[in-house]
């Protein structure tokens, strides 16, 4: 039976080992072992997180800096290994923890699109199919055979962003990258996100409550590695703003 959930997360825990002294060296590691010092302290970043995302849901994750949002996205994207808990992902997941990962200034725009595509798990034939759409969305047709280092930073981010939203995955994950570029391009991005609502499963992390209210069909508020509110975007946005009131 095909599940109606795109993502199911159960009792997810993740902690990091933070080095206490400077332990980045063989010598220090050696002395730490001799002295019986662990050399690190454990910091729990995600404490027992459970939630499910329905197919087609546009989920916003909000919370203060350091509350565990990005760690959660990285665990979902399989970049980090969880300490315990279960994650079930139905379908292909395309994560954008950052735009333009692997972009190389010495390669041309076109070469970068293919490299980025390969890193995201797309074959050259699949990138071929998306390529024209990516370029036209980015409005960079005349520049694709130029080296990326000759692009303005706005052009680079537009190209990266276009790859992100044109990459056809079942689940799209975006960290803090909702609208980029000038006003006209931002408007285009907003239109695009509105059109996604109800069609594509999207998970975004953002600090912009206007965007949460505008795009999301559901939102989650994370505080100290725990979900403290889950549901209606308006209410979650309110709860988020309340965090800063006292």
């Amino acid at each position, binding site marked *: 039976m095909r599940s109606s959930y795109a993502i199911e997360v159960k009792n997810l825990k993740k902690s*990091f080992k933070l080095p206490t002294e400077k332990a*980045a*060296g*063989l*010598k220090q*590691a050696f002395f730490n072992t001799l002295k019986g010092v662990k050399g690190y302290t454990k910091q729990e970043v995600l404490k027992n997180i459970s939630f499910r995302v329905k197919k087609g849901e546009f989920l916003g994750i909000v919370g203060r800096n350091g509350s565990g949002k990005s760690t959660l996205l*990285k665990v979902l*994207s*399989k*970049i*980090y*290994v969880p300490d315990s808990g279960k994650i079930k992902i139905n379908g292909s997941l395309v*994560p954008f*923890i*950052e735009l333009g*990962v*692997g972009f*190389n200034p*010495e*390669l041309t725009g076109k*070469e970068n699109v*293919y*490299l980025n595509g*390969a*890193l*995201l*798990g*797309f*074959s*050259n034939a699949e990138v071929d199919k998306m390529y024209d759409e990516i370029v036209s969305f980015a409005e960079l047709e005349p520049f694709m055979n130029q080296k990326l280092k000759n692009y303005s930073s706005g052009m680079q981010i537009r190209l990266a962003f276009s790859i992100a939203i044109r990459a056809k995955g079942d689940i799209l994950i975006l960290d803090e990258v909702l609208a980029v570029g000038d006003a006209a391009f931002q408007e285009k991005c907003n239109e695009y996100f509105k059109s996604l609502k109800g069609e594509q499963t999207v998970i975004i992390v953002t600090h912009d409550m206007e965007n949460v209210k505008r795009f999301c069909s559901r939102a989650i508020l994370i505080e100290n590695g725990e979900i403290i509110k889950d549901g209606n975007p308006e209410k979650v946005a309110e709860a988020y703003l309340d965090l800063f009131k006292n």
Partner: protein
Amino acid sequence: MKMSEVLNRKNQILLSELTKTDFKLRYQGSILGYLWAVIRPLLMFGILYIVFAKFLRFGTDIPHYPVYLLVGIVLWNFFVECTNQGIQSLIIRSDLMRKIAFPKWIIVLSATTTALINLGINLIIVVIFALISGASFNLSWLLVPFFIFELYLLSFGLALFLGSINVKYRDIQSIWEVLIQALFYTVPIIYPLGMVTALSGFAAKVLMLNPIAQVVQDIRFCLITTDTMTGWVLIENIFLKFIPLLVVVGILILGIKVFNKKSKYFAEEI
């Protein structure tokens, strides 16, 4: 890494894209470009040839000594490039590992494949030199790829092992640079093995237990002159003859095991 997934379609594409990029970027911005892949070993060979063959008069009793020397240098350079690039590649690509989930060993595989391509280019030059200096094609040339594969597996295993430790302890990179310098003098590359056997037969046998020495001598035997003293002939004990091969397999297994264990946490440790 599960065996069935090792080179599935997705990984193949990623490997080829990363390798292409590596190769494109290596000689980026230089006037001679790819030609450097050829010029570098030739210059190195020129220097060593003048010093060792002309001034120190090594290898006067070995036919085609210049090519004999060149083969050794080319293979050694491959070993150095393969291990160094393999170790550093994980640091260079740290940005990717922190942002995207993909099999990490592809990074090492791509870096070592680039070294393998360079070796391929260099070997073409070796063959041209060999033909010019009077060696002629024979069937034993066909064995050369097997020995190169052996050397590659050794380098790949070392790169996996050292690279995965280097992610957390960057000292490894520096230690390896010194170690490899020392190792260079234990391999009969600039000096003929005959010089060692003349001093001590036992020492020569010990040196030949090293798989790099074994591969270098075997390739010289196949490619240039059957006068080459190989480990197989020098070491009498039938079990000891297989030591170099066992070392390669051992290091490869160790490398894969350690890498598999550590690579899960690269993204957070780097």
